[in-house]
Structures are given as structure tokens and as C-alpha cells.
């Protein structure tokens, strides 16, 4: 095999998610009354970016063979916090943004510390911390409300040179400044290694704990960026339980669509981003084909079910039945 074949194999999950998304998006724009215009792209981008960020956050935990069921709640908490803090003069706004992001990272780090040092199973631990984060969000915003620096909000949700959606640029920046450095750092590799085989990683003397902790903290940070963006879109903070739960669930769906292995150690946040964008496009497709919006949850569910079942087809190539048991 040549180098490029290995590289292709390495990125197969991401490329599959990318092509699914591209195909769906082409179908969508081709059938959209307005066609492929900057406006249509901007609307789609703004809808997709939120889930993309949350899915990216989820990926960072999933590669360590964990799962973060509190990610939607961190998203809500930072949204509610931003609706208090990200206002006023540019300096106040900047300080607010920094605090919001720091709180997101802190939430992630708390999850990580409980899982790593407290030795609790991620699924149970994050269910419980999720309740705490939601409680704090509710404390901040018992009722929807608040405001945000609208100049900043409009700038980041609008278009650059009236063509490129700013939210996509921010998403690309998050990938370039957080995901890429992390995944290529020693700690990122330790996080992958811990997810793939924790004992082997330990025997190899890798910094597993710090790698995992960093993964959880960055996950919280990225979820916090998502929360901030939610505030920029809605201009309000809203501790809506259903919305938080939906984002958690959809983030897992996006991660799976994006080719990230839930058993850990494999996959890329970039794949999850395309998984998220593809998942969002499902809803848009139903819209352009004039489906009753009532059918949307059912279609999303069925597509998710079909996607994960397709992933299972590889199983039928397993010739030794023992290999199908973990």
C-alpha cells in the first residue's frame, strides 16, 4: 500500500460523513425555491454550527472511550451565563466572553476529574453533573430572558464580504485553533491511546490522566463556544430542558454519523462536524419536500436508526464470531 492509501483509510469516516453531507446539501439547495444563494447557505450554516460545536465537544470525550451526557447542559448553562455577561462596552463584552468560555471549560474539567480521579463511569457521572449544570442554568434564567451585545452577535452570525457565513468561519477557526492542535499534541494522542487501550497506554508510559482531563476540559470549552453562539442567535438565555437533552442526543447521533467510534480511540471531530451538518440537513430536506413538520422527529429517528444499522453491516464480514464480542 502507498502512503496515500493509508491516509485515505485513516480519514475514511470523515470523508464518508463529508460526502453524505455534500450529497444531502446539493439535493437540498437544488430543490430550494431560492437555490444555492448566500442567504440559504447562511441560514443553513447558522442552524448547523450549533450542533456542530456540541458534536465536536462530544467527540473529544468519546475518543477517550467516554461519553458526555451533560454536554447539552453545559451548552445551556453557558447560554444562560452569556445572556447576563456578554453585554455592554467592548471591554465588558470581552471579559464576559472569557468568563463564559472559562465556565464551559471548568464544567468539562469537573466531569473529567470525577471520571478520572473519582473513577466513576462517564455515563453515570455526566448524567448527574448534567443535572447540576441544568440547575445552575435554571438558577441564572428561571425564565427566558436577558440580552447580548448585538453588534458582536450580528457580526458573528452574519456574512463576511456578504458571501461567507461568519459562523462557518468561526467553526473553522475552532477546528484550527482547538481541535487540530489538541489532536496532534502529545496529550491528544494520549487521549486517543487511552480510548483505544488504556492498559497498553499505561504500559507505554503515556500521560493518560492529563490527556483525558484536557480532552474533557476542551470539550467543555467547545460546548461553551456553542452556548455563546446560541446566545448570539437568540439574543436570550433560556434554560430549556428539552433543548439541552435534544442537543446531547443529537450530538451522539452526529458523532456516530461522523465515523467516530463510541468504543473510543478512533475518529475525528471534523467527521463529527460533518455528521452534525448532515443531521441538520435532514430537517431542511423534509422542509423543501413539503413534509408536515410533525414528521420531522420520526424521520430523524429513522435516519439515525438506519445509519447505525448500516454501520453494523461490517459485522457480517466478521468471520470469527468471537470477534463480535468486546
Amino acid at each position: 500500500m502507498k502512503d496515500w492509501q493509508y491516509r485515505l483509510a485513516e480519514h475514511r469516516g470523515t470523508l464518508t460523513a463529508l460526502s453524505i453531507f455534500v450529497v444531502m446539501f446539493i439535493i437540498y439547495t437544488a430543490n430550494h425555491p431560492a437555490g444555492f444563494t448566500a442567504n440559504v447557505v447562511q441560514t443553513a450554516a447558522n442552524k448547523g454550527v450549533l450542533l456542530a460545536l456540541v458534536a465536536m465537544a462530544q467527540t473529544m470525550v468519546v475518543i477517550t472511550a467516554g461519553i458526555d451526557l451533560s454536554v447539552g447542559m453545559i451548552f445551556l448553562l453557558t447560554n444562560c451565563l452569556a445572556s447576563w455577561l456578554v453585554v455592554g462596552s467592548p471591554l465588558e463584552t470581552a471579559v464576559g466572553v472569557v468568563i463564559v468560555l472559562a465556565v464551559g471549560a471548568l464544567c468539562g474539567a469537573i466531569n473529567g476529574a470525577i471520571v478520572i480521579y473519582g473513577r466513576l463511569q462517564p455515563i453515570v457521572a455526566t448524567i448527574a453533573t448534567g443535572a447540576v449544570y441544568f440547575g445552575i442554568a435554571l438558577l441564572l434564567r428561571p425564565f427566558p430572558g436577558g440580552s447580548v451585545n448585538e453588534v458582536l452577535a450580528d457580526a458573528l452570525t452574519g456574512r463576511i464580504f456578504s458571501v461567507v457565513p461568519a459562523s462557518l468561519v468561526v467553526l473553522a477557526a475552532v477546528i484550527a485553533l482547538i481541535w487540530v492542535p489538541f489532536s496532534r499534541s502529545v496529550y491528544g494522542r494520549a487521549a486517543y491511546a487511552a480510548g483505544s487501550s488504556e492498559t497498553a497506554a499505561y504500559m507505554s508510559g503515556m500521560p493518560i490522566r492529563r490527556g483525558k482531563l484536557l480532552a474533557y476540559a476542551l470539550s467543555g470549552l467547545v460546548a461553551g463556544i456553542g452556548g455563546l453562539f446560541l446566545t448570539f442567535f437568540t439574543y436570550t438565555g433560556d434554560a430549556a430542558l428539552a433543548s439541552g437533552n435534544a442537543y446531547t442526543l443529537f450530538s451522539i447521533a452526529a458523532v456516530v454519523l461522523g465515523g467516530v467510534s463510541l468504543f473510543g480511540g478512533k475518529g475525528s471531530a471534523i467527521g463529527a462536524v460533518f455528521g452534525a451538518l448532515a443531521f441538520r440537513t435532514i430537517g431542511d430536506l423534509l422542509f423543501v419536500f413539503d413534509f408536515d413538520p410533525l414528521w420531522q422527529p420520526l424521520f430523524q429517528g429513522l435516519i439515525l436508526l438506519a445509519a447505525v444499522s448500516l454501520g453494523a453491516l461490517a459485522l457480517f464480514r466478521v468471520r470469527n464470531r468471537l470477534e463480535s464480542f468486546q
Partner: protein
Amino acid sequence: MTQTTGRKTRFIRSLDPAVLTAFGCILLLLVLGSFYSRSFLSPEYLLQQLKVASFLGVIATGMMLVILLGQIDLSVPWTVATGAMMACAAAAYGPLGTTLAIPFGILCGIAIGLVNGVGVAYLRIPSMIVTLATNAVAQGVMVVYTGGFSPQDSATTAMRYLATGALIPGIPNVVFIWALIGAAMVFILRRTGFGRAVYGIGNRERAAYLSGINTRRIVMIAFAASGGLSAFGGVLLAGYASKAAQSMGDAYLLPAIAAVVLGGTSILGGRGTYLGTVAGVILITLLQSILSVTQMPEAGRQITYGGVIIFMLLLYGRAPPSR
């Protein structure tokens, strides 16, 4: 090795530290509660708590079976809702519908459970994903069915009787139902081949398969049972509230998992007793009750709820150290 000593050691083993701690926490909550209000230790209050706990208990029983296998069932919310809505819907179809309402609701839950089981046992999809997907599908079906509004059908008399009546004065029927289901579960886990197989698969599925156990069948049955019990929980809840509601199941997923895990069942499977789950269910119910009688705002309740669960898990739910 005589049989009696065998039984005795088995009994002692079932009283593992986690279960004892859970019961200790229950006592502690009761004592704390009694400082707040004297009525906390009154039989009426305790019976009321037991009644509230029973709904969770029925749902947590199915969850426990699945967790013992090392899997999880995240489709509980909409399985509960589906069971409730379908039972109420059946009631609208004349006397036959009324008679079959309860079995029909449970059957819908079993159907969802079977889809989960096929996904986990045959397609080997991680249970977290497949149950999430079936939850979304069940939600989708229900949203389409109800048109997005709260369903108008109401619960049958039988459902109401099961949930709110009392065959023996003073003891609510639903407590009886939980006791019956619990007793059956204890019997199944301890005395049947199915129970042994469940623990075996939860510990080491590969070894169970190589022992000639039909692991797929066991997994299918467990998920079907979980679905059926969730739906039955939904039927009872609908009977309690006289009708079904869209998001009635949402409040039961996390407490069901928390109850099972706080009762000492390993989330990785293969270890845990039903007595522990009973303790976990009562513990969660009491905690919720205390948080609500203290009239703390919802936010504070959520924070305390999550914090206490983490605290208790750190107390005894930890994995062994690696080195």
C-alpha cells in the same frame, strides 16, 4: 457443602457494602427529613412515598435487567409515553379496546424493546446508540399520532384502579404491583437459568457464548422485558394522572439509571442485586420528596439532586484502582 450454608453465604454476599450504604442513606434522609417536619416518619407519609416509588420501581426493574447485561436502555422516556398513549388510545375503541388497553400498551413497549434487542444482539450496535435511536423513532411516531398535541384519550377504569385504587384498604395497588414484579425479578435472577445467563453475559459475554448460552436470545428477552416494564410503568402513570402526556417519561430515565446504580449494580454489568435496586428506588424517591417539601426552587433541587448522586457514587460506586 450443604445447601443451607450455601444459601446463607449467598444471602450474606447479597448484602454487599453498596446495598448497606444505600439503606444507610435512606435512614439518614428520613432522620434529616424528620428534623424538617414531624410528619416525615408518619405511616401515611411513608406509604405515600412507597406509592410514588412504585412507578419508578417498575421502570427501574427493566432498566436493571438491561444494566446487568452491561447494556443500557435510553429509550425509557418514549417507551413510557408510548405505553401510556397506546393504552389510552386503545380505550377509545369500544369495550374490546378497553379490555385490551393495558396489554396493548405493554405490547407496544415490548415491540420497542425487541427493536432494541435486535440492534444490540444481532447488529451489535452499542445499546446506547440503538436505544437512543428507537427513543427518537418512538417519539416521532407518537408526535405524528397525536398531531403534536396532548392526547385527548383518557385512561380506562382498570388503569386508574391499578394506579390509584387499594384492594386492601390502606395499601395502594401499585405498591402491590411493584412487590409482585420485584418478587418475580428476584426469583428470575436467583433461581432460573435465565438469571444466571444474564449475570454470565454481563460479566463476560464471550465466555457465556463459548459456554453454549444463546446470548442473543437472552439479550433480546432482557430488552423486550425492559421495554414492556417501561410501558407498563407508563400505563400505571397514565392511570394515576387519568391520561397520557407528551413528555411524561422524561422524568424517569435518569432516576431509573441512578436508582439501579446507587443500589450497587455495576454499570458495566454482571454484578448487582434487586434488593439494591429497591434501596436505590426508595432513596431517589425520598430525595426527590425531601427536595420538593423543602420548597426549594427547581434550580436548587436539580443541583442538590445531581450533587447528592455524585457524592453517593463517590462514596461507594467507584471502580477499583488500576495499580
